[in-house]
C-alpha cells in the first residue's frame, strides 16, 4: 500500500543545508496502524508530510497504492492528496468560524462533491465521532477534545486511502487523548482504515500494530510485540 525507498529530504536555510531525512525505506500494508516515534527534529513529521504529498522529497520514491507521488507535479499532487489522504494535526487546524458539520464537509465542498448521499455520510461521521447534536455549533466554541473529533471526521470525509495523524493527542490530557485514540482505533478495526500516526507518547503508540523508531533522519528500529526484547529497546530509546 505505501512503499518508501531511499527517501531523503534536505532543507536549505541561506547557505546552510540540513538533511532531515537521510534515506528512509519503509513498507506499510493496507489496514495497518503504524506509530512513528522519535525525538524532536528526528524527521518523523517531515516523513509524514512527504507521505501525505504536502511536500516533495529531495531524493527517493514514495508509492501509494502503486502511484508514484514523488514524481507528481504540484497540481496533480494536490488532487491526489484531496482524494486519497486524510490529515489530523496536533492543533486541529479547523476553520474556527464554521460549524461542526461545515468543517467535516469541507473536503467534499472543495471537490464539489456535496450530494445528498454525501450529506448523509457527513451526518454518519458526525455521529460516529460522538458529536451528534452539535452539528450546527461553531467549532471555536468546542473543547480541544471535541475539536480533534471534528478534525478526525473531516479527515475521513473523503474515504481516504491513508489517514495521517501528526501528534493527534499532543494538546490533550490523558483522558481526552484516550477518547481520540479509541476513535482512531475504532476506524482502524471496523473500517480497516490505514493509519500512520506520529507521536512522542508510548501510551498512544501502544494502540498501533507496529512502532517505527526514528532517529537522526533514519529508521532506528521497527518494533513489534512479537520481538522478545521490544520493551527493553523502547525503554532505551525513550531514555
Amino acid at each position, binding site marked *: 500500500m505505501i512503499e518508501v525507498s531511499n527517501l531523503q529530504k534536505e532543507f536549505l536555510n541561506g547557505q546552510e543545508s540540513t538533511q532531515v531525512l537521510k534515506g528512509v525505506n519503509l513498507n506499510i500494508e493496507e489496514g495497518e496502524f503504524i506509530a512513528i516515534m522519535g525525538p524532536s527534529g528526528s524527521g518523523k513529521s517531515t516523513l509524514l508530510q512527504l507521505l501525505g504529498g504536502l511536500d516533495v522529497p529531495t531524493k527517493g520514491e514514495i508509492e501509494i497504492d502503486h502511484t508514484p507521488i514523488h514524481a507528481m507535479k504540484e497540481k496533480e499532487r494536490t488532487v491526489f492528496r484531496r482524494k486519497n489522504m486524510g490529515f489530523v494535526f496536533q492543533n486541529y487546524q479547523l476553520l474556527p468560524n464554521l460549524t461542526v458539520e461545515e468543517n467535516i464537509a469541507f473536503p467534499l465542498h472543495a471537490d464539489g462533491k456535496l450530494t445528498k448521499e454525501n450529506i448523509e455520510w457527513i451526518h454518519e461521521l458526525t455521529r460516529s465521532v460522538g458529536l451528534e447534536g452539535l452539528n450546527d455549533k461553531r467549532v471555536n466554541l468546542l473543547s480541544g477534545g471535541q475539536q480533534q473529533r471534528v478534525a478526525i471526521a473531516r479527515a475521513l470525509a473523503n474515504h481516504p486511502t491513508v489517514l495521517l495523524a501528526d501528534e493527534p493527542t499532543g494538546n490533550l490530557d*490523558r483522558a481526552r487523548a*484516550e477518547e481520540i485514540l*479509541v476513535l482512531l*482505533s*475504532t476506524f482502524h*478495526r471496523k473500517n480497516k482504515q490505514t493509519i500512520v500516526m506520529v507521536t512522542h507518547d*508510548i*501510551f498512544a503508540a*501502544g*494502540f498501533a500494530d507496529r512502532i517505527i523508531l526514528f532517529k537522526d533522519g533514519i529508521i532506528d528500529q521497527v518494533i513489534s*510485540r512479537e520481538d522478545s526484547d*521490544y*520493551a*527493553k529497546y*523502547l*525503554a532505551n530509546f*525513550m*531514555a
Partner: protein
Amino acid sequence: MSVKYGILTLLYKQKNHGYELKLELDSLLGTKAKINPGQIYTTLDRLIRDQLVSSAGMDQQERKVYELELKGKEELEKWLLEPVPYNTSKEDFFFKWSCARKIQFHDEQQMLEQQKTLIIQEVMELTQLKTEFLFEGDETKYLLTTGMLFHLDADLNWINQVVNRNR
C-alpha cells in the same frame, strides 16, 4: 483486595456454590489474579460465623449453596461507600527504591531502568488488552484497564523525574 467483599458482591444478586464463586472472583479481580480455592472456603466459613452469609442447602449436583444475609448486604453497601485511602509508600517499588536510597545502592540507575522497561512492557500489553475489552463491549474491564494504564503513566513520569534529578 478482599476475598470477603468479593464473595459478598457475588452473592448480592444470586445464591451460588463455592467453585462458581472462585471462578467469578478470578474474573472480578481482573486479568492477572487467581484465588486459591482454600481461601474461598475459609472465608465462607468466617462469613457464616459472622452471620453475613448463610448456607442455603445443596444444588442438584450436591454442591453446597450459599446466600447473602441482610447483615451481609448492609456490610457490603457500607464498604462500597467508604473512600479508599491512598498509601503509595506501601507500593512495592516505592519501598524498594527507598531501601536502595537508604543504603546508597550503587545500581540505583539500573534498578530504575529495569522498572521502566517493565512498565513499558505492561503499557504495551495492557493497551492491547484494553482495546480487546473495548471491542468486545466489556465496558467494566475496559475502564479498569484504562485506570491501570493511568497509574502506569504516573509511575513512568515519576521514574523519569528521579532519573533526571539523579543526573
